[in-house]
Every structure is written in structure tokens, then in C-alpha cells.
């Protein structure tokens, strides 16, 4: 596989000519712009793995026609529902086959073995098509929206194809909604200097998050996790700390780059992270973490589920929340660790449901620079909880994760490990501090590095500062954690 990762010279070589063509030679009509973007997207996807291109095209064609069919039968609800079900079965079926087949097969055989029947099995070697979890969710949402008459189906195959295959977001999201993205594709895009510059800014920030923060954290967390049984126990907590930061910086960095790149083409994708660690409770955190997935789950899983369970009041609500989060976890991959990760997060909501605090979502310390002491303690405790839960996200299996956590809570928990004074640890902590300091200062803005209102010296000072940090402390990397999902 040759993915054109955003933080590579190859990607720059890919995107620069397209940008020039786009704004100089293809600017005459929306159709020309869309043709160029679609051709680039197909090239981008095929470059990574041409075999799955047929799957992507099949998904586009089938969803395109099903949506039109659903609309055509607007006076015949049973027929409409039939087309919707065909679409649901097709899209979910794709995911189940490519992503979950072996998992269910293995789990089934293990279950059979429990009942005394011994059978051996061979799993199929199924390759996971790139971006499948992202684009199938997007087409699923599209069909459901058309069925619910929230949006009109697209009758322009070119535009719909671009909506699904658009290269800045095809590999790892954001999971876009037709209601937000289609109107932008349906109009000719005019060059807007401020949007273009804002895109560049966001790319710089994403690049910094990815190759400075995430990669430096990874270089510490990986050796600890890979060999956790032979580590001094006091270091395991640090390993979990650096992994939690890595996971966040990796995916939010990717998202910011994707959104920034798209802005260069005049298309605004949805925000995917809104400084999630500056939250005072778990519900607040999930409102700000991987927003395009959580809002998707909210609309298409949680709402129907809690609606059908509404007779059971709070217990129905809790059940719906837990089921939704189990799905959120399972969406990440065919592994019990992800299911458990989701289950735990669902359980963390229970106190909120009973205290009625579930709805409170405010920017922490709005209007002030410093949080109050209580806010600070709440944020730190929440971070600690998320950090420990992330161990399930990182581990290969549940036993490994529980063992890791058990080792953390051994009698060495209060020992300060010597490694913390190693230069690479101190450097990473220093860089993380800068990262969160800038995020904190911009937490009320539209994105983490929206600094257009700063004066020119501070702005350029910050650009050069980040650029130098990237130059000196950046580590090259060819992959992102979320590519595997």
C-alpha cells in the first residue's frame, strides 16, 4: 500500500498541481471543479490500493440509485422502507464482511468450544479496504436522511461521487453529512483568501500535533507498551499518559490536516475535535471527541434506540447510552478490547444520568484565562479516567490491558520513575505543554489554531516557532492510528 499521507513530500507533490489547476484552469464552473476533484480522489484512492477502487465505486453507484428510488416512492412507505433496508443491509453487510467476519467467526467457534464441542478453524484472510468504516457510515447516514426526508437525494452522479470519495476525508474522516457538504459541492467555489490562509494555518497545527506531539509520545509509549511486563511498575503510568496524548494528537492532528487541506479547495468539512481534554465531565468530553462519529451515533443509533425505549425512562436511557457506546467502541475494530472500551465509557455516563448533569456543556472557564480550582481538579480527574480507559484501546487483548492496569496500581504507584529525568521524556513533556497551552488559549475559537485576530508579529512568531519545532523535533511517520479503522 502506498498511502499518500498528508505529512509526506509525495502528498505535497500530489496536491500542489491539483491546487494550481483547480484555481487557475478549472475555476470556470462547478462541474469542472468537481471533475478535477473527483479524478484526483480516484487517483488518491487507487494509489493507496487500486483493488478496492471497485468496491468504492460499487458503493457509490448502489447508494446513489437507492436514494433516488427511496425518493421516487415517496407515496408508498412500505416500498420506501424496502429500499432503505436494502441499503442498510448492503452498507452494514460490507462492513460486517470486511471488518468483522473473522471476529464473529472466531468468537462463534470459541463459544462452541465452551460447550464441549472442539472444532478448529481457519480464518479467511480478508484485507480491510481503506476508509471503509468512514465512507460506509457516510452513505448510511445519507440514505437514512433521504428516507426521513431531511435532505433531497442527489440527482447528479458526479456530485454524489465526490461527496463519498473526496480525497481529504476518504481515509479517516471526518464522517461528513450530506446536508452540510452537498450544498458546497453544488455551487461553484470562489477563491477566498481568508479561508485559504485559515486552511494553511490548520494544516500547520495538524502537522505539529502529528509529527511533533504524537510521534514523540509514541516513541516513549511504544517501547513501554510493547514490553510492559518487564518494565519497572512506576513507569507504566507514564506509558499510559503518553499514549493518551499520542492518540489524541495523532487523530486530531490528522483531522485538522484533512479539514485544512479541504479549505484550500474552498470546501469546509465539519470540526472533529473541540479541545476534548478541557472538559469537566464525560458527556462533555464525548461532545468534543471525534465529533463526526459521536454525532453520527447520536442521530442514527442513540436517538432511535432511546426513542423505542422511552417507556423505561432513565433505565431505558442508560441502556441506550451503553449500547451506543459499545457500538462506538466496536466501530474502531473487531476486537473485544474496543467493545470493552465502549462499555466502560457508557458506564461512566450513569452517574450523570442520575444527577441530571448530562446536559451541561460549557467551554471551561469561558471568558477567563485560568480555570477555577474545582474545574482544574475535574479536568485532571477526567483525564486520568480517560487515560486509564485508553489502555484498553491500545492493548491487544483484554487480559493484557487488565494486567497492565493491575501493575500500575501496585505498591510502586507513588514512586517517581527515574526515566522522567531522561532528556526525551523532559522534551516530550515540554512539547506537550506548548501544545495544550496553545489549545487552551484558543479553546473558544472555531479551531485550535484560529489566530487570525492576533497581530501580525505574534502570528508570524507562532508560525515560525511551530515550524522550527517541527524542523527540530518532528519525527517522520508513514501512518496514522486511525488508518487501521
Amino acid at each position, binding site marked *: 500500500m502506498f498511502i499518500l499521507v498528508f505529512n509526506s513530500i509525495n502528498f505535497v507533490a500530489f496536491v500542489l498541481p491539483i491546487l494550481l489547476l483547480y484555481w487557475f484552469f478549472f475555476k470556470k464552473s462547478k462541474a469542472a471543479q468537481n471533475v478535477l476533484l473527483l479524478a484526483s480522489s480516484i487517483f488518491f484512492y487507487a494509489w493507496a490500493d487500486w483493488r478496492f477502487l471497485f468496491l468504492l465505486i460499487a458503493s457509490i453507484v448502489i447508494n446513489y440509485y437507492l436514494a433516488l428510488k427511496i425518493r421516487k416512492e415517496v407515496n408508498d412507505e412500505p416500498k420506501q422502507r424496502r429500499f432503505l433496508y436494502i441499503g442498510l443491509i448492503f452498507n452494514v453487510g460490507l462492513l460486517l464482511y470486511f471488518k468483522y467476519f473473522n471476529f464473529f467467526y472466531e468468537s462463534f467457534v470459541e463459544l462452541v468450544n465452551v460447550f464441549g464441542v472442539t472444532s478448529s478453524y481457519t480464518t479467511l484472510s480478508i484485507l480491510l479496504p481503506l476508509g471503509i468504516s468512514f465512507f460506509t457510515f457516510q452513505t448510511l447516514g445519507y440514505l437514512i436522511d433521504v428516507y426521513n426526508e*431531511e435532505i433531497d437525494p442527489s440527482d447528479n452522479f458526479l456530485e454524489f461521487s465526490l461527496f463519498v470519495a473526496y480525497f481529504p476525508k476518504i481515509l479517516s474522516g471526518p464522517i461528513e453529512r450530506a446536508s452540510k457538504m452537498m450544498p458546497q459541492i453544488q455551487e461553484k467555489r470562489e477563491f477566498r483568501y481568508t479561508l485559504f490562509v485559515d486552511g494553511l494555518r490548520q494544516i500547520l497545527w495538524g502537522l505539529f500535533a502529528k509529527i511533533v506531539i504524537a510521534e514523540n509520545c509514541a516513541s516513549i509509549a511504544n517501547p513501554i507498551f510493547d514490553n510492559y511486563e518487564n518494565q519497572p511498575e512506576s513507569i507504566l503510568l507514564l506509558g499510559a499518559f503518553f499514549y493518551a496524548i499520542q492518540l489524541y494528537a495523532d487523530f486530531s492532528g490528522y483531522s485538522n490536516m484533512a479539514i485544512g487541506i479541504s479549505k484550500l479547495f474552498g470546501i469546509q468539512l465539519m470540526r472533529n475535535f473541540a479541545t476534548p481534554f478541557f472538559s469537566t465531565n464525560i458527556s462533555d468530553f464525548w461532545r468534543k471527541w471525534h465529533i463526526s462519529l459521536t454525532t453520527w451515533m447520536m442521530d442514527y443509533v442513540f436517538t432511535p434506540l432511546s426513542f423505542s425505549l422511552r417507556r423505561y425512562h432513565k433505565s431505558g436511557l442508560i441502556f441506550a447510552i451503553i449500547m451506543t457506546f459499545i457500538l462506538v467502541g466496536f466501530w474502531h475494530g473487531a476486537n473485544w478490547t474496543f467493545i470493552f472500551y465502549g462499555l466502560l465509557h457508557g458506564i461512566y455516563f450513569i452517574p450523570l444520568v442520575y444527577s441530571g448533569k448530562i*446536559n451541561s456543556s460549557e467551554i471551561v472557564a469561558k471568558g477567563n484565562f485560568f480555570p477555577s480550582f474545582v474545574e482544574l481538579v475535574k479536568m485532571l480527574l477526567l483525564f486520568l479516567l480517560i487515560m486509564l480507559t485508553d489502555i484498553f484501546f491500545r492493548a491487544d487483548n483484554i487480559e493484557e490491558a487488565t494486567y497492565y492496569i493491575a501493575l500500575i496500581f501496585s505498591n510502586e504507584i507513588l514512586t517517581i520513575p527515574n526515566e522522567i529525568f531522561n532528556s526525551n521524556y523532559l522534551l516530550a513533556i515540554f512539547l506537550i505543554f506548548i501544545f495544550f497551552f496553545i489549545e487552551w488559549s484558543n479553546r473558544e475559537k472555531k479551531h485550535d489554531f484560529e489566530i487570525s485576530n492576533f497581530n501580525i508579529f505574534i502570528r508570524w512568531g507562532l508560525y515560525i516557532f511551530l515550524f522550527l519545532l517541527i524542523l527540530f523535533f518532528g519525527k517522520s511517520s508513514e501512518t496514522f492510528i486511525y488508518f487501521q479503522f
Partner: protein
Amino acid sequence: METLTIKETISDVLESILEHNNFEMHDELTAKDVDGWDSLSHMIIITKIEEAFNIKFKLRDLNKLKNMGSLVSVIQNKI
């Protein structure tokens, strides 16, 4: 039932669940305008409204609710 009575009943439901009445009832009022009325409290509110009017919503009705005006007209069609 008159729209005014329907609105009054909805207003009572909201007040009992959200524990405040910092909202003004008008047709353009949306959940976003009302503190605490989000996707989580939404279901509890919907259930209480169903009980208050002795009606049953469909999921599709729910998706069509855009503001107070549409909620009132959906209720009117059901009673």
C-alpha cells in the same frame, strides 16, 4: 385542542423536566434555544408530552420536528 392550550401543556412539561422556565413559547423556538434541552433530555421530554396528550409519536414524526410550531402541529394531527 387550541394551539394555545397545547403550548401551555408543552411549557409545563418543559418546566417540570428542565427545572426552569427561561424560554419564551413561540413557533420558531427550537431545542437549541432552551437550556438543557439536548438530545439526551429530548427523549424524556417527548415521553412526557406523549403522556400529557395521550398520543404516540413515530420516529419519523420526531425527525420532522424543527421547532415549536411543527411540534404543535404534529400534536394537533394526533389528537
